[in-house]
């Protein structure tokens, strides 16, 4: 075992660490949540990541996006993801995709991955990702944030989890996000993702809701 992974053990077995080095994960969205997803996956040593994001950084991202430094305003987020991982762990391959996931490209983009992690910032985009995961039979770890609240869940192909969670005409009013909310959300998602990737037992269709303002944590079974 390489020294860089020593402190992963025994929380993960040596075999699980090696397994992660051979896994491929699509990180869809490289902003608030996505930046932390990429950081956490790279520290764990997940061998391949596809970092998908069409956007460049702007100043309003500075309050929460880990991959952003002031000098990177205007720089593509997916490219920043690749470069940060190379500085952390050059054994990991990151493929930056500077494009939005849409109904035409989504399945092709994620088809060669073992898992998709959600760093998206809109419900329509999440529906596209979930549909592609169903089509390609890839599990999906959902995550979303607003203000002080983070929520995460595992969705298995075809479980229609997002339809249960979001009624068709739902409207999001609070567009604020604080620095710690995406970090917390990504931590939940990556913990769930590691369990999926290493074959540990996991519940799907259950929403983990965390209100960091009131320290309230709820486990919500969503009828699908």
């Amino acid at each position, binding site marked *: 075992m390489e020294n860089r992974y020593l402190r992963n053990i025994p929380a993960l077995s040596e075999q699980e660490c090696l397994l992660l080095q051979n896994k491929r994960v699509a990180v869809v*969205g490289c*902003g*608030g*949540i*996505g930046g932390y997803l990429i950081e956490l996956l790279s520290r764990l040593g997940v061998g391949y990541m596809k970092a998908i994001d069409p956007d460049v950084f702007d100043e309003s991202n500075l309050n929460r996006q880990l991959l952003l430094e002031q000098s990177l305003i205007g720089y593509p987020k997916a490219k920043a993801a690749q470069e940060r991982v190379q500085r952390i762990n050059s054994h990991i391959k990151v493929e930056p995709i500077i494009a939005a996931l849409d109904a035409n490209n989504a399945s092709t983009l994620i088809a060669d991955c073992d898992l998709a992690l*959600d*760093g*998206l*910032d*809109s*419900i329509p985009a*999440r529906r596209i990702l979930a549909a592609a995961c169903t089509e390609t039979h890839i599990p999906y770890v959902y*995550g*979303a*944030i*607003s*203000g*002080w*609240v*983070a*929520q995460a869940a595992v969705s298995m192909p075809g479980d229609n989890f997002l339809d*249960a*969670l*979001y*009624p068709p*005409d*739902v*409207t*999001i*009013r*609070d*567009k604020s*996000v604080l620095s710690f909310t*995406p970090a917390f959300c990504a931590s939940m998602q990556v913990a769930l993702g590691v369990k999926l990737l290493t074959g540990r037992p996991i519940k799907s269709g259950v*929403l983990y*809701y965390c*209100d960091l*303002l009131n320290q*309230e944590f*709820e486990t*919500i*079974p*969503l*009828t699908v």
Partner: protein
Amino acid sequence: MIEVRLFATLRQGREKIIMLESETVSTVGDILRKLDIPTEEVSILLVNGFHKKTETPVQDGDIVALFPPVGGG
């Protein structure tokens, strides 16, 4: 009585827990109207811990939990 628990931003301008006379509401949708909460501002509706819809009937002793949509990233 029906106990209504509000989460996150749904508490703004309202109490965290609201007790309603069961005679005054017959569905979850009635509760939303009574509390002046637009349907599109609710993502998860739980009745006694199970995810339900606005047309789900409610009765004395029920606990209803309402969560706003969370969708940023």
